[in-house]
């Protein structure tokens, strides 16, 4: 083009390593994900053998510091409150082990397993086909459990806000959660609400600025993250993660939009799985009292899309 452009002075791209606030300054950290808001690490908390997820919202350099503090604090607290409410009402979500709203970090229980997205991709890679799955296949059970899990969250008055197959996990193997030693979990156990951490630990961790050191029973170091996906991964509790966009609401509209987002995410990431997704919706409809009217609302939402028509 003949004309010069006025590109703003962007400093040269560089790898910014965020220095984490205490007590994580010297923790072993493995970056799991970088979202728009938060960095998610695998690390240890309180003891060197307690694996956990650290969700850190670094200060945004573009935002005015006062505004940044205000937003980080409000969002972190909102997310933590939703998670605590879910735990209290028996929805399987990672437990909040500790947080510091001023410094933007929250520590969550480590959930052993893989995302539904990974599990389904692994299932396809292992020869599974979304079309014409026979009735006895474990993948139907997985769909039913997803439907029930979403229904359960909606039933207690929470909308996730960002339901994708990446934000649904299938907990696998032995219970990775402290305080339980019943051995491998089976499907029949999934409905039972769990009080997994000693409540004293959790409350102390949430209220004190510097987490005190607790005497914990010695335990096995965490197993390495599972690599290969097999069909046995279809079994296991559905754990919802990432409540960063969650809201507390009981409106059918919000719930229907939640389902619509999940439906679109399913269609985008798992082409051909439409029939399977119907099973998610069916079991959602049966999972709680308001489920059917939400499904009716979903038809409206589908017709107009999530977005309204654009004005001007």
């Amino acid at each position: 083009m003949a004309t010069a452009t006025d590109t703003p002075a962007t400093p040269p791209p560089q790898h910014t390593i965020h220095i984490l606030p205490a007590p994580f300054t010297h923790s072993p950290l493995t970056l799991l994900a970088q979202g728009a808001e938060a960095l998610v690490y695998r690390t240890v908390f309180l003891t060197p053998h307690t694996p956990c997820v650290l969700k850190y919202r670094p200060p945004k350099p573009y935002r005015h510091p006062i505004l940044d503090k205000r937003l980080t604090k409000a969002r972190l607290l909102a997310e933590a409150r939703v998670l605590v409410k879910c735990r209290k009402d028996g929805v399987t979500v990672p437990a909040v082990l500790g947080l510091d709203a001023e410094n933007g970090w929250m520590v969550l229980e480590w959930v052993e397993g893989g995302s539904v997205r990974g599990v389904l991709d692994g299932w396809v890679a292992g020869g599974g086909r979304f079309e014409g799955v026979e009735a006895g296949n474990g993948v139907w059970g997985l769909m039913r459990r997803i439907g029930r899990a979403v229904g359960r969250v909606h039933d207690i008055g929470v909308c996730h806000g960002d339901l994708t197959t990446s934000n649904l996990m299938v907990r696998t193997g032995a219970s990775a959660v402290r305080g339980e030693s019943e051995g491998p979990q089976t499907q029949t156990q999934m409905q039972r609400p769990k009080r997994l951490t000693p409540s004293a630990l959790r409350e102390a961790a949430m209220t004190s600025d510097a987490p005190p050191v607790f005497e914990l029973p010695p335990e096995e170091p965490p197993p390495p993250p599972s690599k290969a996906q097999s069909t046995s991964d279809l079994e296991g509790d559905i754990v919802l993660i990432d409540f960063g966009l969650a809201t507390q609401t009981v409106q059918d509209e919000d719930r229907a939009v939640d389902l619509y987002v999940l439906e679109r995410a399913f269609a985008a990431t798992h082409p051909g799985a439409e029939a399977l997704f119907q099973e998610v919706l069916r079991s959602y409809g049966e999972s709680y009292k308001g489920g059917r009217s939400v499904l009716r609302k979903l038809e409206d939402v589908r017709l107009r899309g999530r977005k309204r028509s654009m004005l001007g």
Partner: protein
Amino acid sequence: MIALGLEGSANKIGIGLISHPSANEPPIVLSNLRHTYPTPPGEGFLPKDTAIHHRAWVVRLIKQAVRQAGVKIEDIDCICYTKGPGMGAPLQSVALAARTLSLLWGKPLVGVNHCVGHIEMGRAITHASNPVVLYVSGGNTQVIAYSAQRYRIFGETLDIAIGNCIDRFARTLMIPNDPFPGYNVEQLAKKGKNLVDMPYAVKGMDASFSGILAAADLLAAQIDENLPLEKRLKTEDGELVTKADLCFSLQETIYAMLVEITERAMAHVGSTQVLVVGGVGSNKRLQQMMGLMARDRRGSVFATDERFCIDNGIMIAHAGLLEFKTGVTTKLEDSTCTQRFRTDEVFVGWRD
């Protein structure tokens, strides 16, 4: 190939001529003229008066643009005009001018989506290959990414456009409209330093700006100089809050919202490039904030200056010519305009 572009979806009428020499060469801007309908401080532009303004200027500008470009009428391959979205009456005036020229000169018409015009112009100028696009102007606020022959809207405003929010904020504070309200707000904001709390409404990749206006009305009343001193709005340190502080706070708040939804879209589609287009995109503070965000993501930000950011005829000519080259024209009987025309309705046949 040469195209003439006519743009008049809001208070600016823009006429431009662009040439696409060949597939591998960058387009050449032959002329790019614009005239803005001016309004006094405290007032916006009404569709009817804006249409009258456009009708009064369109012939003059076309004559001047063709003369400046130094092309003969025979050299022009198509007439491109804004089909929408925009204000009805101004759109109609310009569409009428386009139809007249098409019949007079015997040239095919191409109706162009205004938003696609902005995106394509931004891409051509900055050479950004596949960026996440933030389109911010007086009538639109969208976060867009390209996928499978469409510009898909990932996030957008839930109520009013950001430029509309700034313009009306300026009106409330009686900030002049010349050259445009956003520019004056930007200059005033440089003198502000105290951050006043304003509603910050981001929902996923969408944002809402109407609450800011309601807050602005209340704040403006509290900084009125006729109020007794003890009733005036003060900071925590007892300093009087000024008009400049409000402009500063407005910019810090709403641009942070824009950068946030853009960042979320970038994380979602896994892109590191961001392109800012539309009139509000010429704001230096927004560009700076976007740059800081992009740096953190190890990406880069692309922006253009006011010649191409603010509505212009060139972008319509450019996007229209791209479409024309894929064999698409608008028949005379279909050469309507529409106030509602979503970006994702356009089939983008010219990209892979």
